[in-house]
């Protein structure tokens, strides 16, 4: 039976007239990577910070490892057991990588050997480098190392790849995948669709403080993602008319012909039609993604900067 690590029930966080977190309920299970996916201002960080015991809740309840985040004695227990990579992680500039990890480690009664953590995050070459001289990706890796130094059971990663270039982002993804193999439970917040889809076992789509949908990426895609599409690159208007007449759900977009396909059988029929027409254009089959799910349940897309459009 899967053990519940985090239990959130009817959680509300109110700032004056603004309801940043609006009556949300969810659970986190041991060993899973759980992603909060939503635009800036959706309530992701507020929720995470309530669970990290650094932000008070307005109403509802939140328990981590069974401990209540509102009780000071429980807070001490929670803080011992969690590791955190906060949003926009930073450290003391003039200290080295190892010294910064040591600093965080020094806050705990029990901690891992710093060299071990450095090795785990593949930071051995940079251990004596000052934090100020590191690239963005390496800084995030130091942040993850600091989050792991107390050997936590639950790791919060708040927007771990925001502002990183694609290469650095992939490096951080690899680190997160490793955490899963180490048996850590990971609570990830992100506004990158691909990140949530690649890394998470379960995703909660959150917008305006409310959870819109929650489930595994596969379930969400099959439930809300819509149909697969077949794209004929530069197929032209004539082909679009032909396919529309035979199969419906076809349109032309910047010269490409896009057909929404119900099932595999229909896919083969369309391919056969294209073969009969001796079509030599490039063909691409696209499956629905979390982005489609998001578009469907929220009614917008998230920009690179995290804004809802």
């Amino acid at each position, binding site marked *: 039976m899967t053990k519940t690590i985090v239990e959130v029930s009817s959680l509300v966080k109110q700032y004056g007239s603004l309801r940043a977190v609006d009556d949300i309920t969810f659970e986190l299970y041991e060993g899973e990577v759980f992603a909060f996916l939503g635009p800036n201002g959706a309530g992701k960080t507020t929720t995470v910070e309530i669970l990290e015991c*650094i932000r008070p809740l307005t109403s509802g309840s939140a328990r981590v490892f069974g401990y209540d985040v509102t009780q000071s004695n429980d807070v001490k227990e929670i803080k011992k057991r969690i590791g955190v990579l906060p949003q926009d992680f930073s450290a003391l500039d003039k200290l080295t990588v190892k010294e910064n990890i040591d600093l965080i480690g020094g806050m705990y009664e029990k901690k891992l050997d710093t060299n071990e953590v450095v090795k785990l995050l593949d930071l051995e070459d940079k251990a004596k480098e000052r934090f100020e001289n590191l690239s963005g990706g390496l800084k995030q890796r130091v942040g993850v190392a600091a989050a792991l130094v107390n050997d936590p059971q639950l790791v919060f990663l708040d927007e771990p790849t925001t502002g990183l270039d694609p290469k650095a982002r992939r490096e951080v993804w690899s680190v997160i995948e490793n955490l899963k193999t180490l048996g850590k439970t990971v609570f990830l917040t992100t506004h990158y669709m691909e990140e949530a889809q690649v890394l998470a076992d379960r995703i909660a789509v959150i917008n305006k403080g409310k959870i819109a949908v929650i489930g595994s990426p596969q379930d969400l895609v099959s439930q809300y993602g819509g149909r697969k599409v077949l794209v004929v690159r530069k197929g032209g208007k004539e082909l679009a008319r032909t396919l529309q007449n035979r199969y419906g759900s076809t349109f032309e977009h910047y010269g490409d012909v896009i057909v929404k396909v119900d099932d595999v059988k229909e896919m083969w029929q369309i391919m056969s039609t294209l073969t009969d027409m001796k079509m030599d254009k490039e063909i691409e089959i696209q499956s629905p993604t979390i982005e489609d799910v998001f578009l469907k349940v929220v009614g917008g897309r998230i920009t690179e900067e995290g804004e809802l459009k």
Partner: protein
Amino acid sequence: MKRTLAIFTAVTKNWLRSRSGLFFSIMFPVLLLLLFGAIFGGGGGTSTYSLFVQNLDRTADGAPTDLSNAFIEALNSTETFNIRDVPADANATSYAREALGPLGGNIRILIIPEDFQDDLLNGTMKVRVSVSYSTLLTAYPYFATQLNETQRIAVEQGIAQLGQYNATYPQRTTSLTLILDSADQSAAIVKGIVINIANAFNYGLIGAKNVINFSEEQPSTAKQFRFIDYYLPGVIAAFIMTNGIIGVTTNTTEFKRRGITKRLSITPLTKIEWILGNVLSQTLLNLMLTAIIVVVGWLIFKVQAIPDPVSIAIIFLGSVMFSGIGMLLSGLVKDVEAASAIGNAIAFPMMFLSGTYWPIEFMPSYLQSIAKVLPLTYFSDGLRYAMIYKYSEGIVTNTAIISALAAVFIIVGALVTRWKEK
């Protein structure tokens, strides 16, 4: 304790490796000490004031008269003035302005008038006659009874003739002209010296001897302290204050802005451990600052005001007090720019109003009232009492005030430091 020590170590290392931090915390105070020490600390000869002198009292062949020349010599003998002659036929002010050149400087001109010597001698004679007549009138009743009739008549005739001579002798005085810029900070000193020399001439020419004399002694201890020794505790106190109010405020606000404080607050670290770690780091910095300032002062200016254990205890308490103010301010402001602005706005007026660089008595009474509520006043006074005067009552009183303020600021600093988001 372990966590406080970890914060202390990390913050101290971070500071020691920061060039700008080191400059403003250590090098800048040392440079200021060197600068003030060079100005006030002795070495390299005494300072002199430029003084233009136009001597209009000349003989028929154009040479200065003996007495006017002697007056200028007397000015020279003080070794206070760099005397520059102004030709007798020149406009003294225009001449001085031209001589000072485009970069300017303060105009100080002494004009010795024509007939200075004659007027001085005649005026002196009148004074001598007047004093003699007055003395005889006062003394005569006491010895008249011892004289016979003939002697009495002769003396009375003599006194009457002297009285007549005194009444008819012309009253002549002479007047020196001193032209000084109203903005000249040294005007009072120059004027005081010139008046002293004029008075010495007045008394010397009538043959008067000083009745009141002065002897100068040090107020305390066997050591011979100089200005730089008195200045040293002020420099130490002032920069411990700026390190606390500007340094701690900007550093901790920067930690807050960059999320470092927030990251630490997620760990088991408590707010008071965080504050104590920072305060201890600041205290170490201030002890290092004190050691460096004292060593530099000793090597270059041979200062004798070396901190003893009592002074070190006061420095510790002062560091805690000003770090507490720094923590308090950083708890109130949101960004580093505001922290720097508010730190400077508090530290600099306090530095100049607390008697660290000049005595509080020099300031107007309303500023003296302000000085009495500034923590730096008690810190620099306490330190000066401990390092120089060894004045127990002053040490105890000021240390008690510093301790109480340190406790208040640390407690209030802890209260306003946010350890949880809203």
